């Protein structure tokens, strides 16, 4: 049986939200008896790994939003995969192949992820895949927060977790060939939190990180290239 390949597009040095989502999907799919293979752009995928992005039946691309688009490392991996696809496409069999996209952003509105999902869709088409749907997640940073308070955690994350679970079920059905409807659309989801509260949380989040490094409030506004 083939693997479901999960490509993590984040090249952050810290533990990323994309990694958190990948772990969740990986463990859910493994529980259903589906093998997964995880690749990260951070570790520069080899040619044989790029080939798996072309040949395996299902791939999932997980990407943060950096200035409205996927990170440069993910764009490079996509381009390298497309170049490889161009050179081997005549030798590929006629089986249908699928791609899913998941994108998370730190903004309140999940619609900020729209271009990233559309770029993943275009990439999928260029390498001969059917775009089977995606999830755009707002307030992404909250996914890795509140884990120590289970009731608050499950309440806040409810809509996001539900969408991820639906996507996992969709993948399972495609994998086991129980799903006739292969094409999918994008769904944009958020946490159960008001915009004002989210704004306040993020403000104090950045302020407290700066304070730990000895910054005062006015220091945050420093302009090294003049005003």
């Amino acid at each position, binding site marked *: 049986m083939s693997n479901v390949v999960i490509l993590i597009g984040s090249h952050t040095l810290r533990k990323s939200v994309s990694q958190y989502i990948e772990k969740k999907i990986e463990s859910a799919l493994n529980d259903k008896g589906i093998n997964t293979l995880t690749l990260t752009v951070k570790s520069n995928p080899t040619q044989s790994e790029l080939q798996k992005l072309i040949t395996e039946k299902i791939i999932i691309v997980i990407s943060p939003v950096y200035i409205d688009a996927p990170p440069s490392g993910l764009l490079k991996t996509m381009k390298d995969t497309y170049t490889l696809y161009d050179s081997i496409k005549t030798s590929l069999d006629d089986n249908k192949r699928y791609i899913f996209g998941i994108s998370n952003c730190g903004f309140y509105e999940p619609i900020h992820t729209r271009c990233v999902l559309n770029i993943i869709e275009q990439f999928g088409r260029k390498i001969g895949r059917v775009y089977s749907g995606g999830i755009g997640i707002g307030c992404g940073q909250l996914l890795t927060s509140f884990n120590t308070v289970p009731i608050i955690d499950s309440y806040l994350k409810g809509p996001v977790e539900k969408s991820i679970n639906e996507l996992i079920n969709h993948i399972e059905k495609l994998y086991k060939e129980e799903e006739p409807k292969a094409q999918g659309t994008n769904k944009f989801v958020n946490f159960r939190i008001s915009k004002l509260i989210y704004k306040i949380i993020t403000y104090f989040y950045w302020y407290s990180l*700066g304070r730990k490094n000895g910054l005062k409030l006015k220091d945050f506004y420093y302009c090294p290239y003049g005003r």
Partner: protein
Amino acid sequence: MRVLVLTDIDDSNSDYINFNALINALSQSGIKPDIFFIKKEIVKPCVSCYSCWIKSPGSCRIKDSIDNLSKLFFHADLFIIFARIDFGCYSAEIKKCLERLIPNMLPFFEERQNKMYHAPRYRKYPEYIMIGYAEHISEEEKKLFAALTSLNAVNMHRDKHRHFIIEKNQTIDFHKLLNNSLIKL
């Protein structure tokens, strides 16, 4: 007027003719642009360490050619990006540079067009024109490129912007195009 041109092109590229035409059109208008050829520079990717927000505000801790690009960016009245289009997005090389300009925004959010964006660090940012080139581009990719350019303009704190797409074997009258654009900007 001071103009900064950021490009992923090099002289081995077939679209170099169009790039030269752009530079000539600027020269005819009496403008000698600063040109940042990414392929001739050392630019490392952003690692999202956020040092530029919470340790040394406004400055990236990675020391490479980006410091020079940032200086040119804030001295420019007009910022032109001349980029290859891949999957409806500009190339990874251009993206790498744009990501490294993140220190020019604040970590804090503000609301524009009913959506949250990072607040500007500076009072003034250059006007913005995006020129994309592609050998084969679908209608969907063109729409995506236009949408992405508009969103980037909001992120760069510009209400107005222009974008153009150059397809294979297309030649452009940049003199006319720039004059029209600058009036509209």
